[in-house]
Every structure is written in structure tokens, then in C-alpha cells.
């Protein structure tokens, strides 16, 4: 019975060669996070070990993602197909430049948040499995960035969604439950819509592998008799991903929920989750259905403008710092959406760079807000003050991050905005350019207001000055993220080249397709 000899030629259906060791890099981020998360679930009582294991695992994740990015940039996209089945039958994990760089930057953001959590998450949060949820969330995020299969993308969305529910209700306060309920229901609707659309896509294409879809889309578009409803498909995908990414008019869940959990959790969500939605939107609309995206670009652009302007006005109106940052996240989403709407190589690379900048800056801004709130004992702008004299270095880093978020030189927010502006002026969409500038101006006002009131203004009477000072657990993550923002601001060439390469890889996915189907890019 052992190893029966079959007359069937296995090479027609199975991978028969030994995969290169470098190919494992595309699997390892997800596998490592799942394994480490599972280990933390098993030792749930020994909470002291949780932080050590989780931070070690996240450092390892950063290293693996960096190696993966290096591998992708030196020798093109990396693919591994599960179970030894040949694609499109096996589920492929494919990392191209876009996926790899997103995975690396989000791992850095998660590591920073994990270090900050040493100060923010108390023993009860640890007992409820904060770090286990964090690692499983990162498994979902890494999986979403690295998978090459659209149904698998849905699965990773679910993984990160379920972990995010756990993180949201850490602490079990009634306000958190209320926020989590809004978040859960609206996100479940978005995910269900995504699933329905994937089913629809399978009915049209007969495949779920993204490389396979990309190479079949061209031929399907030529069919005139019973033309496949690619337009409907695209519209549904855009709606589902816009819900995930918090684009107007389906973004009301974000301000309703992001200010309720622990600040580390807000930082993770604000930095990572909406960007996963943007990633999926760019991956699907730019790479798989570019022609149909062009047809609804005006709708997307209108949504982008409204997201930006209303988000910026929202930021200006807030008194609670955490809510304010939530609106700044939304403004960024509007900018990225504008890049998707234009769809030229410059604008797509602008959107990708904006996403990277937003992951770093928004995570850092939430941490800044958390630290400010901890130093002053309140998150309310009307009662904050005097932070500049209490913690000058912290205030300096905060100012850096606020300027970066507003898109002022010489920091990282400038370059993506410049590219988006150039791209919108190139196609004559002056109104889009104006919206980008106006929203940037409003965000500058909103953040300047925060800096003036919370940092520069002398501490109001009766403010508690006895709360513990900043220490390394908050300095290290905020410092690391501010350094990233500064370096990318003054020396942008490497990252600009990277963003360009990522956008080119999406506009012409032949390298991506070759990586999955080495024998031929034609169907």
C-alpha cells in the first residue's frame, strides 16, 4: 500500500521540483505569527512571558519581511503554492513589491505598538490575551498583503477582523462594547459583500488565483456575446473595500469606534486596518480590472473628495484627541482613494507611498495622543495644556509627526501629496488637486490647534502634574516612527523608486503572472 505506483503523470497537476528556500519567505510571516499567537494562547496564565515572546516574534517578523522585500526587489515576485498543487488549483501566496513593502512597514508599526503596549496594557488586558490577539491580527494583516488568491484574501480579512473584535473589547467597558458593536456590524456587512462578490467573480472567471484572473480578464473583455458583467463586479468590489477602508459615505463606523479601545489598539487599527482595505482596493482595481476602474473613476474621485474634506472638517471640530486622530486617518484614506481614482502610474505610486506614510504616521500619532493623555490625565483638548514644558523631547517628536500628517516639508507626508497633486493636474482634474490642498490645509489647522492648546498653552489651573513622566516604553516606539518619517522626508529617493516599482508591477502584472505560472503568461 505504501507509495503505490501510478501511471498518472503527476507533473501535470503537482509541483515536482524542490521549492527554493527563498520561496518560504512569503509563507513565513503568516506562519510565524500564527505559531507565536497559538503559543501565547497555550500559556495564557503566564502573562509575564507574553510580552517577551510577542516582541521577539515581531522583531523576527520585521527581519523576515525585510528579507522578503530584499528578495523581491533583487529577483522579482516570489510565489509559493500550497500543498504542492500547481496554480490555479493550489492556493498561491505571491509577494510582489507592493505586498512586500506594505508587509514590512506594517510589521514595523506593529512592533512599535507592541513596545508601547508595555506601558498601556494592564494585567487584565494581558490575561484577556492582548498579545495573542495582536499576533493573530498580524497573521491576518501579513496574510492579506502576501496572498495571491482572492478567496484567501477574504479569509485573512476574517482572521484580522476576529482578532480586532477581541482587541476592541479589551477591558469590557460599556462604551467599548458599544463601539465594538458598530464596528463589528458594519465590518461584517463589508466582509459579507466582499464574499458575495468573490462568489460572483468565481462564476465569471472560474478561478480565484489573482494572477490567473489578471491574465484572463483581457480575453473576457473581448467577448461581446453575453458579455461578462465585469462592471458590476468592479463596482461591488469598490464598495466592499471602501467600507473596509473607511471612505465616504461608508466611513461612519470609524469615528464611532476607534476612540473607545486602549490607545495601543487604536494605534494598530488606525495604522493598519484601513490600509488593508486600501491595499485590497489597489490590488483588485489597478491590477485585475483596470479598464472597469477607469469607467467608475469619477464616482471614486467624488467619494475621495468628500472623504478628504469631510474628514478634515471632522478633525477640526473634535475636542477629544482620539476622535480627532480618527478623522485624520479618514483624510489620508481620501488621498489614497484619489490616487486610485486617477489610476496613472504616478498617482498609484503616490497612493502606495501615502499608504506607507499613513501606516507609520497614524500609528505614531495615536501613540502621541495616548502619551499626551496619560501625561495630562485627560484626552479633552479644552482641559489639556503645558505638555511642552513637561516633556520637551516628546513634544518635539509630536510636532514632527503632526507636520508629517499635515503633509508639510521636510517630512514624509509631502512626497505622496506632491505626486498625487501632479497626477491630478496631469489629467486636468484641478478640482481634485484643490480638494487635496484644501484638506491638507484644514488638517494643518486641526493639528496646529492641538499643538497650540495641548502643548504650548500653559497648564490650566488644577491640572494634575504628578503623573509619571515618559520613559523608554513610550520614547522608543514614538522615536522610531518619527525617525522613519524624518528619514523618508529628507531622503525620499529609495522609497520613491520602490513606490514606482510597486506601481509599475501593478500596471503591468506580467512579472507577477510569470512568478505564479512560470511556463507561460498566456492562458
Amino acid at each position, binding site marked *: *500500500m*505504501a507509495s503505490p505506483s501510478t501511471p498518472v503523470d503527476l507533473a501535470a497537476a503537482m*509541483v515536482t521540483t*524542490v*521549492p527554493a528556500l527563498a*520561496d*518560504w519567505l512569503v*509563507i513565513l510571516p503568516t*506562519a510565524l505569527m*500564527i*505559531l507565536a*499567537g*497559538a*503559543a*501565547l*494562547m*497555550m*500559556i*495564557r*496564565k503566564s502573562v509575564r512571558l507574553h510580552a517577551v515572546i510577542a516582541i521577539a516574534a515581531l522583531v523576527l517578523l520585521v527581519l523576515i519581511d525585510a528579507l522578503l522585500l530584499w528578495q523581491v526587489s533583487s529577483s522579482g515576485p516570489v510565489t*509559493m*503554492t*500550497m*500543498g*504542492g498543487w500547481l496554480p490555479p488549483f*493550489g492556493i498561491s*501566496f505571491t509577494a510582489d513589491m507592493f505586498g512586500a513593502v506594505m508587509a514590512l512597514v506594517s510589521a514595523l508599526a506593529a512592533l512599535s505598538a507592541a513596545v508601547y503596549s508595555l506601558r498601556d496594557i494592564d494585567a487584565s488586558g494581558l490575561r*484577556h*490575551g492582548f498579545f*495573542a*490577539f495582536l499576533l493573530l491580527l498580524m497573521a491576518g494583516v501579513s496574510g492579506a498583503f502576501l496572498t495571491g488568491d482572492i478567496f484567501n484574501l477574504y479569509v485573512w480579512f476574517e482572521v484580522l477582523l*476576529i482578532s480586532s*473584535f*477581541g482587541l476592541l473589547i479589551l477591558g469590557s467597558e460599556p462604551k467599548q462594547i458599544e463601539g465594538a458593536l458598530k464596528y463589528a456590524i458594519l465590518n461584517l456587512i463589508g466582509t459579507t459583500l466582499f464574499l458575495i462578490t468573490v462568489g460572483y467573480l468565481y462564476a465569471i472567471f472560474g478561478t480565484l488565483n489573482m494572477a490567473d484572473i489578471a491574465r484572463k480578464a483581457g480575453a473576457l473583455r473581448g467577448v461581446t456575446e453575453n458579455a461578462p458583467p465585469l462592471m458590476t463586479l468592479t463596482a461591488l468590489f469598490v464598495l466592499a473595500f471602501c467600507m473596509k477602508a473607511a471612505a465616504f459615505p461608508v466611513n461612519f463606523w470609524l469615528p464611532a469606534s476607534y476612540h473607545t479601545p486602549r490607545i495601543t489598539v487604536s494605534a494598530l487599527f488606525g495604522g493598519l486596518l484601513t490600509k488593508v482595505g486600501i491595499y485590497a482596493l489597489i490590488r483588485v482595481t489597478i491590477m485585475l480590472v483596470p479598464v472597469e476602474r477607469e469607467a467608475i473613476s469619477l464616482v471614486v474621485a467624488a467619494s475621495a473628495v468628500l472623504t478628504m474634506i469631510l474628514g478634515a472638517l471632522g478633525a477640526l471640530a473634535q475636542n477629544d484627541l482620539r476622535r480627532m486622530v480618527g478623522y485624520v486617518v479618514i483624510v489620508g484614506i481620501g488621498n489614497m482613494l484619489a490616487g486610485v481614482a486617477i489610476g496613472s502610474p504616478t498617482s498609484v505610486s503616490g497612493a502606495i507611498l501615502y499608504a506607507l506614510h499613513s501606516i507609520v504616521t497614524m500609528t505614531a500619532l495615536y501613540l502621541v495622543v495616548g502619551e499626551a493623555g496619560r501625561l495630562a490625565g485627560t484626552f479633552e483638548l479644552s482641559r489639556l495644556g503645558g505638555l511642552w514644558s513637561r516633556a520637551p523631547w516628546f513634544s518635539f517628536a509630536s510636532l514632527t509627526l503632526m507636520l508629517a500628517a499635515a503633509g508639510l516639508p521636510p517630512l514624509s507626508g509631502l512626497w505622496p501629496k506632491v505626486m498625487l497633486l501632479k497626477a491630478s493636474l496631469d489629467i486636468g482634474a484641478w478640482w481634485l488637486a484643490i480638494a487635496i490642498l484644501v484638506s491638507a490645509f484644514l488638517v494643518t489647522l486641526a493639528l496646529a490647534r492641538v499643538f497650540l492648546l495641548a502643548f504650548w498653552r500653559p497648564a490650566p489651573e488644577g491640572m494634575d502634574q504628578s503623573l509619571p513622566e515618559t520613559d523608554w516604553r513610550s520614547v522608543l516606539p514614538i522615536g522610531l516612527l518619527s525617525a522613519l518619517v524624518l528619514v523618508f522626508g529628507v531622503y525620499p529617493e529609495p522609497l520613491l523608486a520602490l513606490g514606482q516599482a510597486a506601481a509599475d508591477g501593478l500596471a503591468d502584472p506580467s512579472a507577477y503572472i510569470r512568478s505564479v505560472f512560470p511556463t507561460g503568461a498566456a492562458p
Partner: protein
Amino acid sequence: MNTLILRTVAPVITALMLLFSVFVLLRGHNEPGGGFIGGLIAASALAIFGIAHGPGAVQRAIRFHPMAIAGAGLALAAVSGLVSIAAGVPFMSGLWIYPDILGAEVPLSTVMSFDIGVYLVVVGSVTAIALALETEPDGGAGEGEGGG
């Protein structure tokens, strides 16, 4: 629900259902069944035991916290996939060994260990939910984080 009849037969039913769940798990390799449905059967067995004797009794009977069991299953499933590195085949490829145990050839595979992992994840997470639902609000026998 907590009648003498239920309390008397619950251990027997639980034992039978647990045995049946393992049967369904192993049967699932080539026929209908598998880790997911087997895990659900096992979790409902524990739920019946919990209804009859209380969540505390279930917790004592299974020794480990349900979420720890789910974690062990997740780890087992991940390891089953990663064994492929050593064998030089892609992630999650089925690998077989055929050891001779007591004169019978027993086929063992990473497919099966993966399925056992699924079984443990489902048993752990569904039992955690069931115990949380059966626990009085002021108690704290387990928090109902879902999954599976």
C-alpha cells in the same frame, strides 16, 4: 434542565459523544467527517456535561483552559504545514509515513495531524463560548472569543 435523569445519563452521553467525535475525525480522511464536524460533536458533548454538572465540572474534566486547547490545535496545524520545509516540498503538502504498529501498517500523515489541529481549535473555541454562556454573569470561567 438540571434533573436527576440528566445528571445520571450526562456522563455516559458525553463519553459516547467524545468517542464518536474521534471516530468522525478519523473517518473524515476519505469519507464524510473530519476535524471541524468532529470538534463540534466533542464541544456539544462537553456542553451537555456542562448543562448537567455546571461549567466548573467541565473545566475540571478537561484540565486545560478551552482557549489553551484551541491554541494547541492552532500550533499543531501550523506545524503540520511547516514540516514541509524539512521535506523539501511546498507549504502544507501532505507527507506520509507508514510505521508498523503491532503488526499492522498504520498510515500517518501531516494531513491527519492538521485535521487533529482543526478538531482541537473547534473543541477549544466552541467550548469556551459554551462555558461562557453557561456561567452565571458574575462568574468568570472563560471569555467567549470566537473562532473556527
